[in-house]
């Protein structure tokens, strides 16, 4: 006799929920610990470590850690730097990468296949492998300086520019746009060309409006990468002026034994990403599932 179908389904469902719950606990508990610790004094953090209290808002709870971090760490300036770098990188990246993908996916030109192949190859080269040669390059690039009148300076080091320009053109973004644009029926382009449109008008009036989700996805992925940048600014931004938030956190952590403040700093650094996730959750999940890329 076969077992009842619905009981088997119920057992499967319970098992599925149990596994999902386990993963939720594994992924959420560090964030919960960080958040709760950010409201607690140093001693209590250590005394709570051996119990469930570490994840609960119990004991001596206050915003003192946040007051101390905001008052003394320069977090405001670093956050502004990170926001500026992220916004400019994302805006410029969306434009540049989508245009490149449009040329690859929708226009016919000699050498297109080779360029696409090179872009795919670039996908597998990590920043760590090219960071030093890149640093040597940017160290000798010219830029306009405004201190003491307009002048040309021969180094991009220690600027916001050096944290933006190398990351605007992004192989992954181009490839992501390329795949999305390739799926749009060519009849749309051809109808527009017959109607008198130029390639840029086809891009502007047809392709871009039909790719809203793709643009949002790329914005999220490139924005997260820009916000979380750490290795590159550590190499090229030695002083505080153009320092981004993540490097600021590391510096703060280096000279700090007040773990409550460290956790408060980390919470503040995570907050914009968390809010962005809540706001763009649908696209974010789509992007991670669609691209197979770690979030």
């Amino acid at each position, binding site marked *: 006799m076969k077992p009842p179908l619905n009981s088997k389904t119920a057992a499967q469902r319970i098992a599925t929920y149990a596994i999902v719950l386990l993963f939720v606990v594994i992924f959420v508990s560090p964030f919960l610990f960080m958040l709760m610790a950010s409201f607690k004094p140093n001693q209590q953090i250590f005394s709570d470590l051996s119990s469930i209290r570490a994840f609960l808002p119990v004991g001596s709870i206050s915003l003192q850690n946040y007051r101390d971090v905001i008052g003394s760490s320069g977090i405001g300036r670093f956050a502004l730097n990170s926001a500026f770098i992220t916004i400019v990188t994302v805006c410029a990246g969306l434009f540049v990468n989508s245009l490149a993908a449009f040329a690859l996916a929708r226009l016919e030109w000699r050498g297109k296949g080779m360029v696409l192949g090179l872009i795919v190859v670039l996908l597998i080269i990590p920043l760590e492998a090219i960071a030093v040669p890149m640093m040597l390059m940017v160290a000798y690039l010219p830029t306009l300086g405004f201190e003491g009148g307009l002048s040309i300076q021969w180094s991009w080091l220690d600027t916001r520019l050096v944290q933006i320009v190398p990351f605007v053109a992004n192989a992954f973004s181009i490839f992501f746009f390329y795949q999305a644009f390739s799926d749009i*029926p060519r009849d749309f382009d*051809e109808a*527009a*060309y017959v*109607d*008198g449109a130029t390639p840029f008008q086809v891009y502007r009036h047809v392709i871009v409006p*039909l790719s809203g989700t793709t643009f949002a996805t790329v914005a999220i992925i490139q924005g997260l990468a820009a916000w979380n940048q750490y290795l590159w600014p550590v190499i090229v931004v030695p002083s505080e002026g153009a320092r981004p938030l993540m490097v600021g956190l590391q510096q703060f952590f280096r000279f700090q034994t007040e773990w409550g403040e460290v956790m408060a700093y980390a919470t503040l650094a995570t907050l914009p990403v968390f809010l962005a996730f809540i706001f763009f959750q649908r696209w974010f999940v789509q992007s991670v599932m669609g691209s197979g890329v770690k979030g």
Partner: protein
Amino acid sequence: MPSQVELCDVQKGFGERQIIKGVNLLIQPSEFIVLVGPSGCGKSTLLRMIAGLESVDTGEIRFDGAPVNDRRPAERNVGMVFQSYALYPHMTVEENVAFALKIARVDAAERRQRVDEVLDVLQLSALRNSRPSQLSGGQRQRVAIGRSIVRKPAVFLFDEPLSNLDTALRVQMRLEISRLHHRLRNTVVYVTHDQVEAMTLADRIVVLEAGTVQQIGPPLELYERPANKFVAGFLGTPQMGFLAAEAVGHGADGLSVRICASGVTLPFRGQGSRQGNVTIGIRPEDCTLCAPEQGHLAGEVLQVERLGSDTFAFVEGGGEAPVAVRVGADRDVPAGSRVGVTFDPARCHLFDDSGVTLPPHTA
């Protein structure tokens, strides 16, 4: 102003594969030309070459005598309706129709006026704020037509525009396209694989097969005097029946042709003397059913199609394929019964070994 379109020995290939093998065609201003042929014959490629969406390998395309090979689609003053309609899903009906005018920077007042005119002609005014996804197939088709006529192009190009519609809507849209052509009098090049569309819409039909023109002419001329076996078989539903035969001599009644399957010999008047294999072609409406022993051909009824107005019996008589015979709508012909098929040789078509009509009609 409608344009004259001329194709002079136009050729096109993709890689090793030659798609268009030297097409010559002169389309007069205001003429409605239908390119028809089986899938893969190159008719859509030819249309796209006229539009400028495909380059021409060799040969020349001329509009009003001027070569346009190097002109971009927009510079040819053509309007095109795609098989998929290609309506922009993010735009409303009004925005879709106005798109070409917006690109051409026509000022807002004139743009509005011209769009209103087109929407009015196509009875789309009530749907101006709808998006394509909210429209039926016929409405989408009308928007696609509206988008192509709003620029007042000299030449309209239609690429199988009705193939996605159901039968009833297809008949309705066919009438609308015909009415629109009579009203606007533009030059039209229309691609279809549907011979009914071709027969009902065209001033002249161009039958293509494997990238070559088989015959050009008015619909009835092609139907009644096909240049070859391909054209004869392509036009007409059900298809013309073909019987393998042999020319056996020439007498006072004309060429004597013996049907291989039945051994019956028929006289074909007006044919010259010849010997060897030929094919007899006979339309369903030119055949009659009779007793098996009285027919030029005898065989079993394989299938009976009752269409209401007509009934067609398909008789397996030893030919290349069953021979279709039109019988009265109310006549009962049981499938599986043995019948004879008789026909008037004067209504038959005779093809030589290579499929060319005897005597050949000029293309």
